[in-house]
């Protein structure tokens, strides 16, 4: 039987709440396939953060908890300590990961807490209307950078490269992109297996697209995501 979605999606709540063309949908497609492919749906506990990520609070047919400000990671660190057999996935955007909740990721990586963190980097605060983020590239016009983001505010925050320097030697850190679903799938699988098989911390940053806030059509959105790779290179960071 031909199916359009992964088995692990919560099919009753589709269409999901993400915007047309949203990179979260593409990521969840491949995350779903990763879970299906590894046959681990029954072992997964999902945590989603605030921002657009929270729209996935019932996206997958797995137990899910929603928190805020990047605290999904310490919450799942706590959960994993008492439920070591569960596979926990901490899902959030670049605002939660690289801004307000940064130190929580740093320390989870440093301590090698067995948690798989997925960071959707769409270069803006999407749910609040596309404001400038740490990952927004210089020159970009957003509601909080109306004349273009000043280069003095940073050249684009490279989270995985930062974490690499303090992370435990066995941690898995990589960057992938929604423009390459095959790479996205294999990276997500590796990040889940790092936790499942070797009890390691894993972090995947996913370069994503935000047609609603970027005000771009399908082609322009994907082109912009390719452009992002110049600043944020794809591949294993550690």
């Amino acid at each position, binding site marked *: 039987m031909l199916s359009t979605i992964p088995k692990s999606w*919560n099919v009753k709540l589709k269409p999901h709440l993400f915007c047309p063309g949203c990179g979260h949908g593409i990521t969840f497609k491949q995350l779903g396939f990763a879970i299906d492919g590894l046959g681990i749906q*029954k072992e997964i*506990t999902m945590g989603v953060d*605030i921002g657009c990520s*929270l729209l996935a*609070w*019932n996206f*997958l*047919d*797995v*137990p*899910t*908890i*929603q*928190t*805020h*400000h990047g*605290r999904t990671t*310490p*919450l*799942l*660190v*706590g*959960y*994993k*300590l*008492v*439920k070591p057999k*569960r596979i926990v996935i901490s899902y959030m955007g670049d605002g939660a990961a690289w801004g307000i909740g940064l*130190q*929580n990721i*740093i*320390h989870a990586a440093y301590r090698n807490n067995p948690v798989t963190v997925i960071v959707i980097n769409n270069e803006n605060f999407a749910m609040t209307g596309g404001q400038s983020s740490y990952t927004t590239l210089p020159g970009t016009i957003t509601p909080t950078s109306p004349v273009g983001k000043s280069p003095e505010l940073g050249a684009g925050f490279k989270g995985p490269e930062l974490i690499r320097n303090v992370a435990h030697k066995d941690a898995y850190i990589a960057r992938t992109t929604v423009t390459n679903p095959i790479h996205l799938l294999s990276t997500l699988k590796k990040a889940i297996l790092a936790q499942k098989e070797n009890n390691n911390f894993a972090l995947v940053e996913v370069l994503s697209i935000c047609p609603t806030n970027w005000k771009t059509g399908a082609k322009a959105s994907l082109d912009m995501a390719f452009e992002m790779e110049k600043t944020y290179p794809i591949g294993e960071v550690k």
Partner: protein
Amino acid sequence: MAEKIFITGNEAAVRGAVDAGAKIMFGYPITPATEILEGWIAQTVTDKSLQYLQTEDEIAAGFGVLGAVLGGAKAFTASAGIGHVLLQDPVAMAENMRLPFVGIMMQRGGPSTGTVNFSQQEVNLAIHGGNGDSFRIVYSASNVEEMYSLVIKAFSAAWKYRFPTFVLGDGYLGKMKATVELKKLLKPVESKPILSESGAPTWLRNCFSSEEELNTLLNNHITDWEKNKNKIVESESFHTNDARYLVIAHGLVASATKETVLKMRHERIRIGLFRPITLNPFDGEALRTVARGAKHIFIVESAYGQLGTIAKAELAGHNIKAKISQISKPAEGFTPEEILKEIKKHNA
């Protein structure tokens, strides 16, 4: 079976947590609560069923507690002052989602870093520190023994009623050593996983799209709170039967007041003490019963009217004729003699 031992308040709190069935503690060192974290970690060395995580900050500690609780373990944290401020974030989430949460807060002087010693200034914070309607159970311990018994009670209340629960102590109580009798609880309340591990998945969120949706949820919280608050409230009335003078005090200040009351009784002054054991919910009924016969009420606290605001609201509109005096000494303790002096000064 009661055991009598000589320990500090912080050690008593650790014993309380162990005896209540706690399995994991998350914490970040802060004076004067650090010994609770140290004491718990020492327990984990000998008892392999116990775990701990020293986190990067109090926010992570609080969210770690929530994670462990979702997994079905009894978990807790301990902190003070500015650490208590940071903990309000996870506590507000617990309040929204009705997750059991236990926090032992050893009050220190504030605002901000303040002092590391003593205060009763974290009452408002414990009760009202979230962006909600303050559905938190707050106990105030007045001696080392209560650092044990109220911690046990806090776990029972948190898991039974599913409201976040605080035990307020202070720097003196944490560091002072006293002989205490440990009355063990026979049957600690049970804890089960909240996130499903098989069958239909649980999807939990604390963010809602419409006002109506959230309001409906909160109305359920209100119903539960109103239904249970009379089962939760606790207070002590000390020499209040014939009291013409009534002191309202909590925590260690209430303990000091007991000595004052006994001294004044010796001088044949008809004075008594009302001591709330739960600051929220508050035993207003018991307070009004003892306040009716009083002609002068003294509210004594090491804060500027935090207990006073609660007590006055409970007394208002009930035809209580007593004069009310507020005696405040923010971030500083009272000796029994000082309380006596203050009462006499206000009654002059």
